[in-house]
């Protein structure tokens, strides 16, 4: 401790001495210090230190510390080894440390060695958590997650040794070249797949960015650095209410790189969860496709501000070739609100896979000619399909239908695969050119040429290409279209200005269903039904968006307006009364009055109301409202159009035509007919567009293809209509022995098995296919080889079953115009019609192979159970109440049937167990009873298996017949199941799985 006074003296002498030259100092100090030798020595010592010190402490502390840190690390690395790892070369350097290529001297393998910056590893607890998380991620053993060999420490340096990936980071790839949309999606699928596995294990990556994604030359993507970001995050605040903050990195490059991929919640410093990775992946996907990051700014703060407040520019205008679906997916991943974003990466992955598959499949249309055996009056069509590119790249592809190929099965499949690839490429290009996909087809019909036939010739243009447009409507002036976009319970409402193609979201995504679209007569409002939490209500929203107004609670159809637009009509089911009421109200929802009531079992909407678009049609003269009603006997497939008088509510059946279902309808401007979406055949029931003349009721198909048409909306002049075209893509997959979710694909014609699948005793799979242009039954080995057509074309065949003795295939064929049961040998020979009644369906064979059970209409149009000898002859009636789809139990003692349970409250369709005598069901279960439902027995006879579709994904479930709770058998994360069958021993499963793409199409009459 210095004496202050003495210190002052020292200082005075020191400063004075410094003023002098070194030579002068000694004399000066001798004199100044007098005899105080200690004082002199002190000053001399300090002067010496001064000389020696040079720029000691001159460089600021930050710099000194940084230099020291740098040399420390360099020292370690220049030593050439870290622990057992011999450094080979520097691979890269990032915000979270340096990465070296190194050789593991113990195992002789090459590794990537990442050295963690010291300041990340100071907190032992955080370090431990990081290690744990990194190990857990590595232990996932997922092909897209990098494998960690060791997390260790050597010479105070924390390191991670991982598998060395020869390849480059996505950053390099993005910087070098634009990434093809298909490739970008393939990369994103792999990243999402890795994230799904990690999230399932409870690990959030937190720092998904191109620098952390490695691409191998073989196309495999590896996600790096799981858990590392958490290590870098600043410690949690200790109970302070000051704004939370994250760590600052000051290298502008690094900050930009990192900040650009942050989720809004990360930017805000909030707690993050799996959804943060979804956002970051969205950013990566956006950047891959567009070449630049969605959120940009000159400084970190600007980037963060953009993340928090700005919507990224749409992908499509930036770059041609971006499918609308991709825009939709990116938008959903980049939603600022976590609740609006994809909730799980599994959902995102499912959408990406779907899109990937769609691009591979091609978005082709497949019109086909109806078989020659169709009765007169139905149409014989020649279809010609044209893809027209409207931009600079002109692509034209034509397909003439029917596709008359009779080559061998294997060849057909190969050709077909090639074709699909070609079509996919073509469609890719077509999308690149941002085409309007237009489809022309002329349908001639046997009517006198001088009579104007509505929509006898027309042009179809696609309005959407997302595959997710569930419903659509057109404005009375034809200028606007509105459509519901989105699936999985989060739809939103979009307005399209048709001439410019611009889109505007007018009702943001809700958790529920949006349906029942209609424009008001003056075009200023859009009416829609919103189904949320079990309640449906009618809303209207101004044309260009704004506040939605709730008008009517409890509504079950779209509305149809009176000619002056002041009133509207709709249907409401009243289960308590057992009625469905046709209701008229003012356009603002006031003044409701019941015009007519029907037995609820007979009136629509039927069970799957929300999957279709239903609605009555108010005639242009105002006097009649048309709606679809079942005939008084409740059959499964027995619908008619009924004209209800607005004056007194009396009803009149319109047509002789029966349909298996009737959807929405719209009147033509002159009141001389309607356009109706309705399905004809029970065995495969897509809605087609029909023209029904009024008042004579003559019905004629406008469309005649394999698509389903959802809803009809006409312009005021009735020259244009909008509908949603729904296409099914399906292939056959098989799985064995308990591992039902692990399926392998056995067919690839994309329309396989939709209307039937059955195992043969020799382990082949029978399936329906339209490879010839009409629909026949084919067979393929379980390993996917030897695909072969079984029944001759042209046919309209489905629901094959094989007799237990393995001799015959029994199936339904509508090749004569009405469904009948047919039989043939396993190789397709000895074809023979078994029944000749009305609309036979759902065959099931007795254990002794002597009888075929089935359902069919009786003379009173009632669907009953019957049996007939395998050799034909007289059918025997089994039940005297309406039921359908018998499936015989493995012990041959009872059926599973679909029936209307009159004893249940409310009366409803259920699946029941029916003894062979057919008297009355002994048990009933509330299983999903959509028209697509397929009921089968488990091999032990103790359960019924059925399809359950939730959020666009179908899984197989089993309902034990003892009434205990149903359990899922499969764990599919994507795709629909259209059909399935178990092998007799229950050890093999065949499923028809695929997609349904729904797109709004505009149909213009061409004269």
């Amino acid at each position, binding site marked *: 401790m210095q004496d202050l006074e003495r210190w002052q003296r020292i200082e005075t002498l020191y400063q004075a001495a410094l003023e002098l030259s070194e030579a002068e100092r000694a004399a000066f100090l001798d004199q100044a210090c007098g005899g105080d030798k200690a004082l002199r020595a002190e000053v001399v010592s300090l002067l010496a230190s001064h000389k020696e010190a040079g720029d000691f*402490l001159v460089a*600021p502390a*930050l*710099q000194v510390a*940084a*230099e020291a840190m740098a040399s420390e*690390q360099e020292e370690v690395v220049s030593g050439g080894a870290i622990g057992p790892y011999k450094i080979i070369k520097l691979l890269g350097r990032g915000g979270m440390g340096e990465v070296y290529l190194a050789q593991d001297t113990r195992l002789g393998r090459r590794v990537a060695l990442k050295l963690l910056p010291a300041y990340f590893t100071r907190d032992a607890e955080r370090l431990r958590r990081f290690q744990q998380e990194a190990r857990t991620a590595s232990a996932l053993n997922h092909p897209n997650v990098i494998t960690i060999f060791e997390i260790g420490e050597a010479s105070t340096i924390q390191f991670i040794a991982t598998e060395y990936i020869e390849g480059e980071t996505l950053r390099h790839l993005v910087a070098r070249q634009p990434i093809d949309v298909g490739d970008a999606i393939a990369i994103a699928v792999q990243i999402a797949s890795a994230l799904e596995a990690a999230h399932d294990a409870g690990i959030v990556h937190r720092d998904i960015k191109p620098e952390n994604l490695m691409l191998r030359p073989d196309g495999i993507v590896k996600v790096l650095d799981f858990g590392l970001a958490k290590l870098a995050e600043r410690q949690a605040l200790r109970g302070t209410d000051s704004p939370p903050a994250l*760590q600052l990195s000051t*290298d502008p490059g690094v900050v930009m790189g990192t900040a650009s991929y942050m989720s809004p919640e990360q930017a805000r410093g909030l707690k993050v969860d799996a959804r943060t990775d979804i956002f970051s992946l969205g950013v990566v996907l956006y950047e891959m496709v567009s070449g630049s990051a969605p959120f940009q700014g000159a400084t970190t703060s600007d980037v963060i501000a953009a993340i928090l407040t700005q919507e990224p520019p749409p992908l499509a205008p930036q770059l041609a070739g971006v499918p609308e679906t991709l825009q939709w997916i990116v938008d959903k991943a980049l939603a600022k609100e976590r609740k609006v974003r994809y909730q799980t990466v599994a959902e995102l992955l499912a959408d990406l896979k779907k899109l990937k598959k769609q691009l591979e499949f091609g978005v082709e249309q497949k019109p086909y000619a109806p078989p020659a055996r169709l009765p007169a009056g139905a149409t014989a069509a020649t279809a010609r399909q044209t893809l027209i590119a409207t931009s600079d790249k002109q692509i034209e592809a034509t397909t003439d239908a029917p596709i008359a190929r009779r080559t061998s099965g294997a060849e057909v499949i190969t050709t077909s695969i090639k074709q699909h690839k070609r079509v996919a490429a073509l469609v890719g290009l077509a999308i690149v050119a941002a085409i309007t996909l237009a489809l022309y087809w002329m349908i001639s019909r046997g009517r006198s040429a001088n009579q104007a036939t509505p929509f006898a010739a027309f042009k179809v243009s696609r309005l959407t290409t997302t595959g997710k447009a569930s419903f659509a409507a057109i404005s009375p002036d034809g200028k606007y279209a509105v459509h519901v976009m989105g699936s999985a319970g989060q739809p939103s409402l979009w307005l399209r200005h048709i001439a410019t193609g611009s889109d505007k979201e007018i009702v943001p995504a809700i958790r529920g269903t949006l349906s029942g679209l209609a424009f008001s007569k003056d075009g200023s409002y859009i009416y829609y039904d919103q189904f949320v939490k079990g309640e449906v209500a009618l809303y209207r929203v101004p044309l260009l968006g704004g506040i939605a107004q709730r008008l009517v609670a409890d509504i079950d159809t779209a509305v149809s307006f009176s000619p002056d637009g002041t009133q509207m009509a709709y249907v409401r089911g009243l289960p308590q009364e057992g009625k469905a009421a046709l209701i008229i109200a003012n356009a603002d929802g006031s003044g409701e009055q019941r015009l007519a009531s029907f037995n609820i079992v007979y009136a629509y909407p039927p069970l799957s109301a929300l999957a279709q678009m239903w609605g009555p049609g108010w005639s242009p003269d105002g006097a009649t409202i048309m709606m679809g009603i079942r005939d008084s006997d409740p059959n499964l497939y027995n619908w008619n159009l009924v004209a209800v008088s607005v004056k007194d509510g009396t009803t009149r059946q319109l047509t002789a035509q029966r349909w298996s279902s009737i959807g929405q309808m719209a009147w033509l401007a002159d009141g001389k007919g309607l356009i109706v979406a309705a399905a004809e055949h029970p065995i495969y029931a897509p809605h087609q567009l029909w023209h029904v003349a009024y008042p004579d009721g003559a019905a004629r198909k406008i469309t005649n293809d394999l698509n389903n048409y959802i809803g009809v909306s006409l312009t005021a002049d009735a020259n244009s209509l909008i509908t949603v075209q729904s296409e099914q893509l399906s292939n056959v997959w098989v799985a064995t022995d308990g591992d039902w979710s692990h399926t392998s694909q056995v067919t690839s014609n994309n329309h396989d098995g939709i209307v039937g699948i059955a195992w043969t005793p020799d382990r082949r799979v029978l399936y329906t296919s339209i490879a010839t242009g009409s629909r026949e039954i084919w067979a393929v080995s379980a390993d996917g080889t030897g695909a072969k057509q079984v029944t001759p074309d042209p046919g309209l065949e489905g629901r094959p079953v094989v007799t237990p003795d393995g001799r015959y295939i029994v199936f339904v064929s509508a090749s004569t115009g009405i469904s009948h049961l047919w039989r043939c040998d396993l190789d397709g020979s000895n074809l023979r019609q078994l029944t000749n009644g009305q609309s036979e369906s759902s065959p099931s064979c007795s254990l002794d192979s002597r009888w075929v059970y089935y359902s069919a209409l009786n003379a009173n149009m009632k669907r009953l159970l019957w049996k007939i000898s395998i050799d034909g002859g007289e059918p025997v009636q089994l039940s005297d109440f309406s039921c359908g789809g018998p499936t015989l139990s493995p012990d041959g003692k009872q059926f599973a049937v679909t029936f209307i349970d009159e004893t249940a409250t409310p009366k409803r369709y259920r699946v029941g167990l029916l003894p062979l005598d057919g008297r009355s069901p002994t048990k009933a279960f509330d299983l999903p009873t959509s028209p697509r439902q397929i009921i089968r027995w488990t091999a032990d006879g103790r359960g019924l298996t059925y399809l359950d579709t939730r959020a666009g994904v179908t899984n197989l479930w089993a309902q034990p017949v003892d009434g205990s709770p149903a359990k899922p058998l499969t764990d599919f994360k994507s795709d629909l199941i259209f059909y399935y069958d178990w092998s007799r021993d229950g050890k093999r499963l065949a499923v028809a799985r695929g997609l349904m793409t729904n797109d709004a199409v505009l149909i213009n009459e061409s004269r």
Partner: protein
Amino acid sequence: MTTLSPKEITQLLRAWSKGDQSALDQLTPLVHAELHNLARRYLSKEMPGHTLQATALVNEAYMRLIDWQNVEWQNRAHFFGVSAQLMRHILVDYARSRRSHKRGGGAIEVSLDQAAVISSERAADFVALDDALNSLAAFDARKSRIVELRFFGGLSIEETAEVMQISPTTVKREWSLAQAWLYRELKQGEG
């Protein structure tokens, strides 16, 4: 990762100077990040020697941590005093933790002999320096403060003079002695 605005940093500094330890928890990583970033630049040889660029980068780093323009405090001296104190606190603490981590020597510790050889990269043992500064402050607080402002706070002679409201000449003179004294202290400590 995100950043704090200068205003937020200023608020945290104020909170810290009033004894709020949680403010330190928020400020520490900022300093660490600057430190690491600079180290990385050295490693990547982006800053060969002491070029103007290197100086500019270090100054920039300081500017981000101690913002001249946005000081709303009536007492700039107080503000810069607090800033420099904070830097000292964090860097010394960091060096201390590294030393204990390594058991035997601090990470930021290049011997003075070595420093003499590589004069341009002369460094100091921050922990020993901290002790020495405390000793100095006991009998000459002003010199200790000047060192704190200049070395830890990164201020120039002129800035230090402004903050301390003394002449630059005085700062220069006092600095000279403080530097010599500290150098000797540290060298002795080593021997």
